């Protein structure tokens, strides 16, 4: 039932998103081509980004065994930006596909580095993990800024450091469908990811090929994050807030919660994008900024609200 309501809201938001913009669809003769070239791609991009980032966040939280981490702040997003920067410096003529491939690889390396650090922290210090993640991400981010400064690419890299959908047009977002496919495919192994969250010994005991699944999870997180960074830029807090809210409402069985996580993520990003288009009409506020304000408030609430069951 819940998922049906969620889908209905999502549909309503999508229709709204098609009609929100500077040009009024009902009076313009070129309305259809406008929808096809700009409004539909933008709506689809927001939906896919939100859904796949929320899924990636849920998987990342199981991998790190901590509720307060997400790929965009724990080094994965910054790793992807580093990859884009390196491609731009050393192979400026590389195709978008190549850029994406390299961004995914660097994202994979930096997220692996994060997991290595997290494994060395004591399990009891829950708050330490996101703290280390934030500093780790900040460190890589400062490294990116340093390289960008030295090669006069700061303005160029800023495009990827803050995500927004205003540049999305037909022909410039199709790579995102790969992220959608990856996110859907991860549903097939959702139960194995859920077992991963119980720790190494339980996983091995239950007959899980632990290292395989960890690597698979890292791949999903890195590919989704890198694709998002390449196409729209960094979008913080979706991967953090959405899985936490769903877990509060529905528990932790990933196979049954994953569709809701995806739907809520898609709805959140799309709603923030629509809000960004309307608040300062006819100008736009990037979705990342709106999410930064809303996301931090929700996060503070999560941090201070008393859990309903024993944690």
């Amino acid at each position, binding site marked *: 039932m819940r998922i049906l309501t969620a889908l209905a809201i999502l549909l309503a938001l999508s229709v709204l998103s098609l009609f929100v913009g500077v040009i009024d669809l009902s009076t313009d003769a070129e309305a259809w081509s406008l929808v096809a070239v700009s409004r539909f791609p933008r709506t689809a991009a927001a939906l896919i980004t939100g859904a796949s980032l929320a899924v990636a966040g849920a998987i990342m939280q199981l991998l790190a065994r901590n509720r307060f981490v997400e790929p965009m702040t724990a080094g994965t997003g910054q790793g992807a930006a580093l990859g884009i920067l390196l491609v731009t410096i050393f192979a400026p003529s590389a195709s978008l596909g190549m850029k994406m491939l390299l961004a995914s690889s660097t994202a994979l390396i930096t997220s692996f580095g994060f997991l290595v650090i997290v494994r060395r922290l004591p399990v009891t210090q829950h*708050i330490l993990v996101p703290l280390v993640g934030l*500093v780790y991400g900040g460190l890589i981010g400062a490294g990116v800024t340093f390289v960008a400064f030295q090669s006069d690419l700061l303005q160029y890299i800023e495009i990827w450091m803050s995500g927004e959908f205003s540049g999305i047009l037909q022909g410039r977002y199709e790579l995102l469908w790969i992220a959608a496919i990856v996110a859907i495919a991860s549903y097939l192994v959702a139960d194995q990811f859920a077992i991963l969250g119980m720790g190494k010994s339980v996983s091995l005991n239950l007959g899980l090929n632990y290292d395989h699944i960890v690597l698979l999870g890292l791949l999903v997180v890195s590919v989704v994050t890198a694709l998002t960074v390449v196409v729209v830029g960094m979008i913080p807090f979706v991967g953090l807030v959405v899985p936490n809210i769903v877990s509060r409402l529905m528990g932790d069985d990933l196979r049954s919660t994953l569709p809701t996580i995806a739907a809520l993520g898609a709805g959140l990003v799309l709603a923030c994008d629509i809000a960004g288009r309307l608040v300062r009409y006819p100008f736009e506020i990037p979705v990342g900024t709106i999410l930064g304000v809303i996301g931090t408030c929700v996060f503070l609430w999560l941090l201070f609200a008393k859990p309903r069951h024993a944690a």
Partner: protein
Amino acid sequence: MPRNRLIALACLAAVCVVLYMTLAARAPWSFLLPFRGTKLLALILVATSISTATLLFQTITQNRILTPSIMGFDALYVLIFTLAVFFLGSQAVMRLPPQMVFLVTCGTLVLAALLLFGLLLRRNAKDLFQLILTGIIFGVLFRSLTSFLQRMIDPNEFATIQVASYARFNDIETDLLIIAAPITVIALVLAWRRRDALDVIALGPDLATNLGEPPLPRQWEVLILIAVLVSVSTALVGPVAFLGLLVVSVTYVLVPSPHHRHLLPAAALVSISVLVGGQTILERGLSLSTPLSVIVDVLGGAVFLFLILKGKRI
């Protein structure tokens, strides 16, 4: 032994200062002395305020990884300034004397910091990591709100704020020195006079209360001093994320003393050496285009991770 270390640090800082003033001096001294002199004075003020604010903050919270800028103090300063431009308009803000704008922003920061971090410190004194996480999230919230307001502001007015939101050591607001210098000196003197009380507070609330030094009233006083010092450094050069952490961590290693009469000057000297020395190397030696703050951020972040990974293994 701390005495000898302090003398060595003082010599290092003096060498940095002399090099900054004399290296590649091609213009006549009548021009160089006031030109470089004011920048040097600003750098020293910033270095001392950041190191003192960080040291005080770490003492009253009894930890060695939390700093005012990690907790979002300087982000809050930029937010308050942005709010002023948003509601009054850049014309009105520019027409006011910069000293007055600074005083009002500084006063608001002191109030806001007392309200926000004071309550937070009281509520969460036991759960340190939750406190740190909350502080970082506050920092992100302040920065997001600032960038949200900046988007709502006219692009022409935006230029006023942009100058305030990035750390800059080349282009320091020297107009503010007239007012920032005496305020910093007063705050530093007040901090120095509390050096013995701080030694006791660093022992923890139970021991401190037992020794007749209840930490709570001191915490409020020190919080005010910290807010003032952060305002000075943010107004002069903008937010610098990890400088305080880097400097104070190095100080603890170089001068392993529990006494604030050693720690306060030592941290200030290390900070001056890092800022003035780093700026000399960047400007005259390497002619790098990267601002010093980015390099300090990389180094400081690395120190932070190292401290956590090392500290937890003990």
